[in-house]
């Protein structure tokens, strides 16, 4: 029977009542008495030299409080990058300065030049038009190949070239090359992982506030990790000690990675609040979000797979150019390297794998992590080239994958690309997929489609990802400039109710529901006695935030550790109350019992004694019941799964319709199945968006052509099918106390290759072997025509 409380229960989301009734409190819903409004003057050209900025006319306009330019930020730190990659020769990457407001040059459309702070948004906007910026336009560097060509215009004059780093991972080149030389068959594919805009439905907002009496700052911001913002902005940009800087991320309307990063607008509003002596609020409008939120993906790759005569993989070689945009966003360098190269082995036993990545500066918006971050790019290449190879050598796409799988009894498995998978069972998820996707019924459905004059295709994909990013000592060696632990404090009150302070942040993931399930399960009390506190650095002392599907695996584990400490102390108190030995005390269903007797005290009696210690072992332990724990894992977690997509293609128009979609995932143990299902659904929706619709397109002058919802096609309810998802295959993670692996990114990683494989399958007999995403009607139709 399904549980109705604790781990494994589909508890209803407690955060939902406030959202359903319009009572959510998002950053833009916050207004502070006396606040002013900031409006950013942004570059309209992709590359240019600032000859001068004249703000005199703007300053004289009604309601204007102050106009800021780069000159106000001279001597103030730039926006830092949180990850330093070391290249193939042992040299550190080229790292350009990233000023809060442009200093001397603009490097992408949207680069902030000046800011008007005024009494109202309207007045700020009007005055911004009167700021006279004199720019000498320079040639824009947009295409990555051109950016790397000798003699290219440089995005940063003080760097030697537009190459950020040239990085490599995997086997010795000679070994890999030899394996290719001797291979029976080599399949090659050139492909593009299309540039995307994350587009959380809530645009970014920042409100800065300075309290002159306390000499401290508060920043309200739409962030996935307020503590990281406190660290980066406090230490590297504005020089504010952590105890003088409070960062609050209240309800946040979706993140998907793009709200991890520290942005110039946050630093600006915090800085300006002191400068003008009043709170400063900035709210992005959607078109501003398109040119100031970090974008995602944008890889161009050549991948080669070598096989033997039986279709066994013998070697894999990839060469990727990864767009960094004009500046290095917070985690940008890590995405094409450690989050991408390390996953190139996939779920397979390929003995030789070699990955090469060149990261490139261009005059475009910075590119950084977007849902999946590097892992979707890895999976897409690998699963496309496998599909192509299977077709070339005439093996069924399921068989070729299965015969190359790492088998369930071969874990832990060290890949040739630096990671060790702790556990998994890829045959199990494949078997489950075959069942839930009704692969056996495909032929019949194909015949039905054909009877309607449509082509039908089936696409299979297997993914693996590395989640729960950590451990700190390892990521430190790989270039991370921060620790990636998580912290939790469990504060029990006299009445037995509990506040759990977590450094993880919930912006849709449902932590307010799932984290209490964990604690309730451990203590045997009802979930409703437990509340989660998050998103405010003044309430939660330390944290690293939510990204890379790490909240439960890392943040949840910290909560487990803190709760274990609570239980240990509570047992001491109970032993005293029961006049028994501590070792004899058992905790079950909220009762402390002396083993083998009916003597017991309730949870509430123990918590009361902790705070009213009239009968208490004061000589042994302190009063109170509050514990903090930090958890730093010793490996990544490795969720994996098998996905199937069925599409119909209209040959006359090129229109693709996703008819069926099934996902069989192994997330290890699952705390709340209903929430996990929703996470997978959302990821699949975004993945179908990437595969069929979404594309951030720049013209050769560096203008973003798809900068609004008129031009950037977001998936809508009518574009996607219902999903069949299953997570009953569970190989628990072996190294965290909950045995969980993370589920937030799986859907976005697993779905694009499944969709593209399905479309190519539908068109294969015409001779179509590949189409780059997004598979718009135009691209599909053109591919059909070209193949004919």
């Amino acid at each position, binding site marked *: 029977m399904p549980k109705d409380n604790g781990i494994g229960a*589909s508890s209803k989301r407690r955060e939902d009542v406030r959202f359903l009734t*319009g009572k959510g409190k998002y950053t833009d819903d916050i207004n502070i008495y006396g606040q002013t409004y900031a409006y950013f003057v942004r570059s309209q050209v992709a590359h240019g030299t600032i000859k001068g900025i004249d703000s005199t006319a703007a300053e004289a306009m009604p309601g204007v409080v102050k106009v800021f330019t780069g000159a106000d930020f001279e001597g103030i730190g730039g926006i830092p990058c949180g990850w330093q990659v070391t290249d193939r020769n042992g040299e550190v990457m080229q790292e350009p300065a990233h000023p809060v407001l442009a200093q001397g040059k603009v490097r992408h459309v949207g680069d902030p030049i000046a800011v008007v702070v005024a009494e109202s948004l309207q007045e700020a906007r009007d005055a911004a038009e009167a700021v006279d910026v004199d720019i000498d336009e320079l040639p824009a560097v947009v295409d990555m190949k051109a950016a790397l060509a000798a003699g290219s215009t440089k995005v940063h004059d003080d760097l030697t070239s537009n190459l950020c780093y040239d990085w490599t991972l995997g086997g010795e080149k000679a070994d890999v090359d030899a394996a290719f030389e001797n291979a029976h068959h080599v399949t090659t594919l050139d492909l593009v992982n299309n540039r995307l805009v994350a*587009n959380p*439905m809530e645009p970014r907002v920042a409100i800065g506030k300075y309290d002159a009496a306390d000499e401290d700052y508060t920043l309200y911001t739409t962030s996935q990790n307020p503590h990281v913002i406190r660290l980066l902005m406090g230490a590297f940009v504005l020089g504010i000690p952590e105890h003088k800087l409070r960062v609050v991320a209240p309800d946040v309307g979706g993140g998907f990675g793009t709200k991890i990063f520290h942005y110039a607008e946050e630093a600006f509003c915090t800085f300006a609040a002191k400068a003008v002596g009043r709170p400063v609020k900035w709210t992005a409008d959607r078109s501003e979000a398109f040119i100031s939120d970090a974008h995602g993906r944008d890889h161009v790759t050549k991948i080669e797979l070598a096989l033997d005569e039986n279709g066994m993989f013998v070697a894999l070689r990839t060469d990727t150019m990864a767009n960094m945009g004009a500046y290095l966003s917070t985690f940008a360098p890590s995405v094409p390297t450690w989050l991408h190269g390390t996953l190139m082995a996939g779920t397979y036993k390929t003995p030789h794998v070699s990955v090469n990545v060149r990261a490139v500066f261009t005059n475009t918006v910075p590119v950084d992590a977007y849902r999946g971050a590097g892992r979707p790019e890895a999976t897409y290449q690998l699963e496309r080239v496998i599909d192509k190879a299977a077709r070339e050598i005439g093996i069924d796409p399921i068989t070729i994958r299965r015969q190359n799988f790492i088998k369930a009894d071969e874990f832990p498995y060290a890949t040739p690309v630096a990671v060790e998978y702790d556990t998994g069972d890829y045959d199990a998820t494949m078997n489950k997929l075959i069942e839930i996707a009704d692969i056996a019924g495909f032929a019949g459905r194909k015949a039905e489609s054909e009877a309607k004059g449509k082509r039908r295709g089936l696409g299979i994909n297997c993914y693996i990802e590395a989640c729960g990013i950590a451990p700190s000592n390892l990521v430190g060696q790989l270039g991370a400039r921060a620790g990636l632990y998580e912290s939790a404090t469990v504060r029990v009150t006299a009445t037995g109710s509990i506040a759990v302070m977590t450094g993880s942040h919930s912006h849709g993931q*449902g932590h307010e529901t799932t984290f209490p399930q964990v604690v309730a399960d451990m203590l045997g009390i009802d979930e409703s006695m437990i509340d989660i506190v998050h998103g405010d650095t003044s309430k939660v002392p330390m944290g690293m935030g939510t990204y890379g599907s790490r909240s439960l695996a890392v943040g949840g584990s910290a909560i487990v550790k803190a709760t274990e400490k609570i239980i240990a102390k509570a047992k001491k108190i109970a032993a005293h109350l029961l006049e028994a030995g501590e070792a004899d005390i058992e905790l079950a269903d909220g009762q402390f019992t002396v083993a083998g007797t009916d003597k017991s005290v309730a949870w509430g009696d123990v918590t009361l004694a902790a705070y009213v210690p009239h009968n208490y072992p004061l000589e042994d332990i302190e009063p109170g019941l509050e514990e903090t724990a930090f958890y730093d894992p010793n490996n990544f977690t490795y969720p994996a799964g098998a996905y199937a997509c069925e599409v119909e293609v209209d040959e006359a128009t090129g229109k693709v319709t996703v008819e069926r979609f099934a996902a069989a995932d192994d997330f290890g143990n699952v705390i709340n199945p209903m929430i996990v299902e929703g996470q997978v659904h959302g990821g*699949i929706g975004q993945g179908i968006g990437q595969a069929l619709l979404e594309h951030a397109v720049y013209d050769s002058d560096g203008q973003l052509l798809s900068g609004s919802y008129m031009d950037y096609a977001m998936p*809508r309810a009518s574009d996607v099918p219902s999903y069949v998802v299953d997570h009953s295959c569970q190989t628990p993670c072996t190294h965290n106390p909950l045995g969980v692996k993370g589920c937030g990114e799986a859907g976005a990683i697993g779905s694009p290759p499944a969709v593209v494989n399905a479309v190519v399958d539908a068109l294969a007999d015409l001779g179509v072997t590949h189409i780059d995403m997004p598979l718009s009607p135009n691209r599909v139709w053109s591919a059909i025509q070209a193949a004919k």
Partner: protein
Amino acid sequence: MSKIHVTTQVNGDAVEFLCEPDETLLDVLRDRLNLTGAKEGCGTGDCGACSVTLNGRLVASCLVLGAEVAGSAIETVEGVGTADALHPIQQHLLDHAALQCGICTPGIIVAAKALLVQNPDPSEGEVRYWLAGNLCRCTGYDKIIRAVLSAAAEMRGENA
């Protein structure tokens, strides 16, 4: 420019406000009437986060001027149900966990309610096409569609 004085009705209550001639209904609701349930996701009529009904008609409040709504009846998410008395659409969204970050949810509720007033027994396709005006980046839509269909069934007196 001088402000315009507007008297109208929101969620059944008579309200009056002063607004700029170019101020949107969305800004009036959020900034002057403190009804922050409607959200701005785009400001261009493309996302539905700002959905309200104006005299029973579903509109994007970012495309309506505050000055236009004198003498109208407006309903926002705050008028659909309360924490103690959720509307069936709200209850079914909750039961299905059909929301994640929640920012699109008020608009979805208002739009779905407008659909069910017009068409109490919609097909899945009709729900999908009606709600195609409401972007949700979190859920992949499946649970929203299920929730609206089951709310419709309950409102018709089925599966009570």
